[in-house]
């Protein structure tokens, strides 16, 4: 009886597996038009920010403020691995989730069941670890056609067959030994895939590169630090532009009407700014690139002459905002430097900037016409001088790379904005060596400080046209997760205690929380399949917070819904456990250690042969 039950179970599981596997295998390629028109496609999440304009707004209403307290886990997918930390935004297409994990690994997961379809490990060169500033994080993949694209820690861009995970092409973007790595999600548009690079602490010169998505052939390279003869090169003394940082380590946004790609640019290098006096274009700013040529159409620096490691790296939000009665094409950005900005995205002109961080002291304000900071000179360290402290915000920033969420109906935007301070001390200049082989290029030390006057973590809602804060949620630990907002008025994010959070978009009231067991450093997404709205939360602390906190190493993707779509007694199919090849062969089949040779006489019914295993 028992045996029959097991067999029946296996049969049912096999059928369920076939159903589960068939659906994704039939999934259509992802066309550029689909990504372009993704706004109303609530069953998928096709690109890093869901849409090219970076709103992370989902027009779904099944989960709403009145019922979100019932949200429950449906399945959990562990990403395992040696390290930890999920900073990714999962993508969803054709019922399949595509998500990256640490060490640039990629997983394809059945969105209904949480069962792995395939996984890919780029086997990053172990040596490359010495050019990771902040862990082996990856923030996501891109989809286009029949391919999934991922950037690797050893600075390769890899195209995988989306249905099988097989490598289609694998290109070195640049020599990682010069300090480069890739942690950001690529951006696919038209027939191209674009990637930036990390390495602002290793003396790189940042760029964005576009590849033919089909073949991996290079299309264009846009250096975000101008070379000799290019406008802005004169903002770099001598040859400092060659190692000026300007990493492009997050994902850009795209305005198809203006044909402009907006990419945010990291800190200037080295940290010690005294050896590179000048504006250091376009570090700590945004560049607008012609999508077809990569030409820089305009640039705007939030922190010219960056003396505080103020990367500008959260993905830009492109919003058409009603201001003074007319609609303005804005680019919205919250910066490490503590100010929230609105720019005119057609030309890069400053519209407004408001301090979000209380006690911000590196600048006395912004020029109301140009947005140029009025710098507090006392907060600039001197080479060989004493520690300057407390500088607010610290180099961990009000925000770092974490995506904001924008509700276009109410023109409200939601983002984390942490409160912490730092001390900065610049080395004597004769102790700063130019990097030759991917060495650290800092010329400075820092110390991170907690502030006694305000809680460390804050998550803010901001009214864009009216330039005012709506509410803020505070935490004793920093926030380090992306945000998501739904049409029904819920903001999803996570905190460093590991709580997945649902906040009321109107009031900031916490409507639901779920302890995921490890801090949340990734970005939640939401989609609807078969009439069920899901919310996915990556859980597992990644990046800089691992410098200050310890927790159980973990990496889990957790799917939530109001109801589990199938009764809990019904198995979805074989889950994520597979027999190791050769470890449990059937009798007569070759195994790891023996060649499948079985003693003669085996297999006779016991009653016929007395001794079932017998050799004469």
């Amino acid at each position, binding site marked *: 009886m028992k045996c029959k039950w097991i067999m029946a179970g296996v049969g049912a599981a096999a059928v369920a597996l076939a159903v589960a596997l068939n659906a994704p295998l039939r999934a259509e390629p992802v066309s550029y038009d689909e990504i372009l028109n993704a706004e109303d496609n609530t069953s998928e999440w096709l690109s890093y920010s869901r849409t090219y304009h970076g709103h992370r707004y989902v027009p779904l209403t099944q989960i709403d403020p009145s019922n979100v307290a019932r949200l429950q886990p449906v399945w959990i997918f562990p990403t395992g691995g*040696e390290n930890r930390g999920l900073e990714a935004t999962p993508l969803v297409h054709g019922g399949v989730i595509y998500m990256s994990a640490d060490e640039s690994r990629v997983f394809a997961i059945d969105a209904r069941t949480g069962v792995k379809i395939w996984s890919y490990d780029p086997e990053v060169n172990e040596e490359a670890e010495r050019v990771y500033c902040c862990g082996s994080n990856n923030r996501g993949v891109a989809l286009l056609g029949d391919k999934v694209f991922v950037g690797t820690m050893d600075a390769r861009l890899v195209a995988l067959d989306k249905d099988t995970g097989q490598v289609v092409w694998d290109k070195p973007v640049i020599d990682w030994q010069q300090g480069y790595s890739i942690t950001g999600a690529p951006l696919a548009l038209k027939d191209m895939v674009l990637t930036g690079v990390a390495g602002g602490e290793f003396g790189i010169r940042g760029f964005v590169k576009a590849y033919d998505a089909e073949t991996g052939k290079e299309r264009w390279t846009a250096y975000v630090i101008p070379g000799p003869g290019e406008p802005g090169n004169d903002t770099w003394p001598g040859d400092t532009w060659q190692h000026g940082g300007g990493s492009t380590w997050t994902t850009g946004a795209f305005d198809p009407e203006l044909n402009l790609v907006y990419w945010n640019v990291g800190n200037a290098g080295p940290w010690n700014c005294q050896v590179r006096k000048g504006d250091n274009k376009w570090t700590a700013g945004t560049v607008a690139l012609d999508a077809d040529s990569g030409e820089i159409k305009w640039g705007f620096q939030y922190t010219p002459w960056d003396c505080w490691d103020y990367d500008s790296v959260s993905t830009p939000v492109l919003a058409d905002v009603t201001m003074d009665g007319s609609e303005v094409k804005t680019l919205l950005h919250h910066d490490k430097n503590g100010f929230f900005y609105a720019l005119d995205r057609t030309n890069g002109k400053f519209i407004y900037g408001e301090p979000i961080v209380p006690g911000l002291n590196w600048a006395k304000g912004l020029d109301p016409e140009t947005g140029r900071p009025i710098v507090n000179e006392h907060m600039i360290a001197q080479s060989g001088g004493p520690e300057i402290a407390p500088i607010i915000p610290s180099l961990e920033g009000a925000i770092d790379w974490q995506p904001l969420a924008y509700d276009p109906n109410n023109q409200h935007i939601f983002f984390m904005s942490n409160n912490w301070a730092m001390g900065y*001390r610049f080395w004597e200049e004769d102790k700063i060596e130019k990097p030759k082989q991917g060495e650290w290029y800092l010329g400075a030390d820092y110390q991170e400080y907690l502030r006694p006057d305000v809680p460390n973590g804050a998550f803010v809602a901001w009214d864009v046209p009216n330039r005012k804060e709506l509410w803020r949620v505070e935490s004793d630990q920093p926030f380090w997760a992306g945000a998501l907002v739904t049409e029904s008025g819920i903001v999803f994010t996570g905190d460093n205690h590991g709580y997945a959070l649902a906040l009321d978009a109107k009031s900031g009231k916490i409507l639901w929380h779920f302890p995921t067991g490890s801090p949340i450093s990734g970005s939640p997404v939401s989609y609807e399949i078969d009439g069920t709205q899901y919310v996915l939360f990556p859980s597992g602390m990644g990046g800089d917070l691992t410098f200050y906190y310890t927790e159980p190493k973990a990496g889990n993707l957790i799917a939530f819904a109001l109801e589990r779509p199938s009764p809990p007694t019904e198995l979805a199919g074989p889950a994520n456990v597979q027999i190791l090849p050769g470890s449990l062969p059937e009798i007569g089949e070759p195994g790891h250690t023996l060649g499948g040779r079985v003693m003669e006489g085996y297999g006779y019914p016991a009653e016929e042969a007395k001794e079932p295993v017998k050799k004469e």
Partner: protein
Amino acid sequence: MSPVVERRRSRIVPLAAGLVVSILALKLPAPYADAQEENEALTNPFLGDPAAIEEGERIFRSRCTGCHWSPLRAPVLFQSELGDEQFLETVISGRQGNRGNMPPFGYVLSPDDVWKVHAFVMARDRM
């Protein structure tokens, strides 16, 4: 007490072992040779040597500072309690730490480079 060094699964370990063996076999500075013969732990021949300390500081600032100095992504090494040989092995081969992996520096630093870094960190007061 010194923390236990967890070796990573690693292609580098044989290489590092090879490096140590090669300095034992080929370069033959007396301390290594003695250690091999007597099966004692390797000791740093550069401790207290001012020129080595200066060179060690230079290497430390370019290779180690991002994690082991003020950012403190990893333990403070000044007045390290690791034994000399353990220090050498850890830098050459890397290790898996609680907050991420220490990369193997055997690819870019020679054992003498590592000894000099060690001489520097042992000459400097703990912060």
